[in-house]
């Protein structure tokens, strides 16, 4: 508490409050479960490209799905945000409470649009590069560096999105696995499957543990 009062001198109440809110928000693990599902979806799609031979219909469809999912990553992300909000209000309100955020002003809206645009451009470029190197079976080696680029960039996004210990762990895991895979001899599809499967499972497990801990604590009635 003294920490809060001393921080008030250096930071705005909004910064302190958003930190406290993030801490309370991450308590139920729903965001991690959602992130885990997205990562495992990517891993599943890449694994389909290993199982089914290059040029087959399923392989092509999986490759196309990866491309569009990366380009339109914002859709499942916002879709799951909406679902999380509904689940919280429907089932977890007695445990996590209710909060209504301030409506966003023009400056915040501009920032959101700018961040979303940059994220979409980065995702689209990454998707295009991955698909190009996979489809063309490029003889040059650098294609594997895309694993490191993917791992580090997604790890960075995960860390800044969650800004909590568990998210830093996921971000670090993504980056470390990406870099390790870039130096290994695995194929790009196997690399992508591993890159997304491990952090995906980590997110799913840590989120599920957080949720089960929350559900075990008895719900307290509002004051």
């Amino acid at each position, binding site marked *: 508490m*003294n920490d*809060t009062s001393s921080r008030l001198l250096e930071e705005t*109440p909004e910064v302190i409050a*958003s930190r406290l809110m993030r801490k309370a928000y991450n308590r139920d693990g729903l965001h991690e479960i959602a992130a885990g599902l997205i990562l495992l979806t990517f891993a599943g799609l890449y694994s389909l490209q290993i199982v089914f031979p290059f040029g087959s219909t399923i392989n092509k469809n999986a490759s196309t799905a990866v491309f569009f999912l990366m380009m339109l990553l914002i859709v499942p992300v916002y879709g799951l945000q909406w679902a999380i909000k509904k689940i919280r209000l429907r089932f977890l309100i007695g445990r996590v*409470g209710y*909060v209504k955020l301030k409506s966003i002003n023009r400056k915040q809206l501009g920032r959101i649009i700018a961040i979303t645009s940059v994220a979409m451009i980065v995702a689209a470029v990454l998707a295009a590069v991955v698909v190009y190197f996979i489809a063309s079976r490029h003889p040059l080696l650098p294609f594997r560096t895309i694993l490191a680029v993917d791992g580090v960039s997604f790890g960075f996004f995960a860390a800044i999105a969650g800004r909590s210990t568990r998210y830093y762990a996921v971000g670090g895991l993504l980056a470390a696995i990406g870099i390790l895979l870039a130096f290994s001899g695995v194929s790009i599809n196997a690399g992508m499957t591993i890159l997304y499967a491990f952090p995906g499972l980590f997110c799913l497990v840590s989120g599920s543990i957080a949720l089960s801990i929350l559900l075990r604590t008895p719900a307290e009635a509002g004051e």
Partner: protein
Amino acid sequence: MSAKIQRLAEIDRIIHEPARLMVVALLSAVQEADFQYLRQATGLTQGNLSAHLTKLEGAGYVAIEKTFRRKYPLTLCRLTERGKEVLDSYRKVIKAAL
């Protein structure tokens, strides 16, 4: 400088208490929050938070509304205009003095 230091004597004691300062800072960043949410975010006990909210409501810094969402009872808290002004002036005084 001494004039700025002397202004510390006029500081609002209701908002100066760390737990209440935390509640007010939290409410300043949201439109409204319920009791349970504030309890989770601040880490205060139910009785402690309740006592602090009563004080803040008594001073006119926080508005409290008891309502229901589905079958769940909600105690909605929001910072009043007076509360916003007091928090703002508190920050200015403390920053100027230290």
